[in-house]
């Protein structure tokens, strides 16, 4: 029993999310200051920047947890403010930053929560919901964990469960807040490869926050460098990850060299005995 869309904003096609001159301040301190960006189907936009640059606030504004003080966020040309909560959750999914999950739910139950915006008023899932949950779990390689309690999963498994939950929403737009920050390198590679593949295959418009500049360079189509709430650079990874820009924003001396296999930029700190 599918809930009927209550607005005309829903269709199954690709979606775009656009932020225009978004500002947000917290207790008078500007956190976002005139941010413009556009998420396009099939492309992964990486957001980098030092601590306190406003990266997480940006995700919160883009997912309507916070209302921008100025400017606007538009999903498919409609202001985010006008969307019904359930309609929005059918189009836009968020993978939050290493949040704690209630440990007593099974992985299956946790991924099933991604179907929330589709469930009828009694919250009973249909066979179709179960099929979608199963596909999302197979896609992320956690279906064999379906019956395990979330509290018994490793960090990497838990993160993939959260990604599966986002996929179960069948979103068109995917926002990821440091999706791999606490994972081992094998899980980082695995999770990000999965995300990029899904972005391409399902034409998702995606944004991901990165702490690790090298991962951002490897997986993103375009990077945005945020500092003090402003976008100071944007473009392909090799245009944004330049020693000059990074030094100016992060206040750390770095060298940027091409990755030996694919030529994408790789950033190394200069410090200790290495500095000449």
């Amino acid at each position, binding site marked *: 029993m599918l809930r009927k869309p209550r607005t005309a904003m829903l269709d199954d096609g690709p979606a775009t999310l656009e932020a225009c001159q978004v500002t947000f301040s917290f207790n008078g301190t500007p956190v976002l200051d005139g941010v413009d960006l556009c998420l396009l189907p099939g492309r992964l936009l990486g957001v980098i920047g030092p601590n306190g640059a406003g990266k997480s606030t940006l995700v*919160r504004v883009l*997912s*309507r*947890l916070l209302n921008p003080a100025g400017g606007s966020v538009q999903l498919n040309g409609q202001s985010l403010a006008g969307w019904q*909560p*359930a*309609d*929005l*959750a*059918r189009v*836009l*999914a*968020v993978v*939050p930053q290493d*949040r*704690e*999950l*209630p*440990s*007593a*739910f*099974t992985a*299956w*139950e946790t991924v099933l*929560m*991604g179907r*929330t*915006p589709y*469930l009828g*008023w*009694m*919250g*009973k899932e249909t066979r179709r919901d*179960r099929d979608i949950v*199963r596909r999302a779990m197979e896609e992320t390689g956690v*279906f*064999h964990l*379906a*019956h395990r*309690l979330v*509290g018994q999963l490793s960090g990497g498994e838990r993160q993939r469960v959260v990604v599966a939950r986002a996929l179960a*929403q069948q979103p068109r737009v995917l926002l990821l807040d440091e999706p791999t920050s606490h994972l081992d390198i094998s899980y980082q590679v695995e999770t990000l490869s999965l995300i990029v593949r899904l972005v391409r295959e399902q034409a998702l418009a995606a944004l991901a926050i990165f702490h690790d500049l090298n991962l951002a360079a490897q997986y993103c189509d375009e990077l945005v460098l945020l500092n003090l709430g402003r976008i100071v650079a944007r473009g392909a990874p090799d245009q944004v990850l330049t020693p000059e820009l990074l030094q100016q924003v992060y206040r750390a001396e770095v060298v940027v060299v091409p990755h030996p296999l694919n030529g994408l930029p790789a950033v190394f700190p200069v410090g200790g005995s290495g500095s000449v």
Partner: protein
Amino acid sequence: MERASDREDVQRRPRRRGLLLLAGLVAVMIVALLEVAWGSFSIPPATVAAMFWQRVTGGSTVGAWPDAWETVIFEIRLPRILLAMLVGAALAQSGAVYQGVFRNPLADPYLIGVSAGAGLGATIAIALGLPLHWEGLGAVSLFAFVGALAATAVIYVLARSGGRSSVVTLVLAGVAVGAFLSAVMTFLMFRARDAFRTVHVLGWMMGSFALASWAKVYLLAPVLAAGGGLLWAYAHRLNVLQLDDDQAQQLGVPVERTRLIVIGLATLVTSAAVSMSGVIGFVGLIVPHAVRLVWGPDHRFLLPMSVLCGAVFMVLADGLARTVLSPAELPVGVVTAFCGAPFFLYLLCRKRHVLAR
């Protein structure tokens, strides 16, 4: 191989849950039947079943049993047991809902003002010497109901700022308002200087079904059916609320509105139950907790199972309350705490690892 069995398991689960609920329902009926038969003088359960059967079919069995038995069963014991079932079910379900919405396993239905408000309302009615019996209800019930709802409403309004309520503020406001109301209540008791009324208030604060009546059953049943049914419809959203507010919002649950509705319904149900029976502790805390420890935290199963287990637990507790010191009666709250607490500790020790986060 493992995958195939997992898949089967996942799909089979709803049916197993249905069977468990059915078993719970049968247990409720068996316990009710035994309790009706059991009392200050016992009637064979088979005879009780026959008496029910005769009522249902309307057949005549004159002389099969004394007329007094009819009165004892249908006018005294049955309304009392039905009321105990309703109150137990209401407290257990509200407890499950409160624990869910506050994301705190130590929450109980009295967390935000119901017991203090109901207690003060009842104390005022008793201190003013208002009539105890009125159409089978009495002023105490009315005052307690209004007091419980008013106290919770005040707490909610106090804890709200800028259109948002935080769980912590709600709990703290609940503690403060509860302490204030208890102080007023104690003041009124001391001022009354009337041992009888003081004992009456104290007894009411421990709960009892001695004043059960059909009128109370008829009044309470529809409130609980409506409130409980609506709460069940919110079960999945309660699951999602176990994540944090942000994630719930991002999954399409309007957190603030949902919390207001769910707290409102649970408070209405609890207040109605408490006004009929007095403040009975522990049921709303341990029953949902026990159900959660055994069958997991999915509210879609937790809520109905808590209803059934709460009903069984309360009927058994009331059975003990009216027979242990027979012909005197214990307040049922003494029994629920006395039996509930050790059982709860047992569950806690057995399933400690599930609680460790």
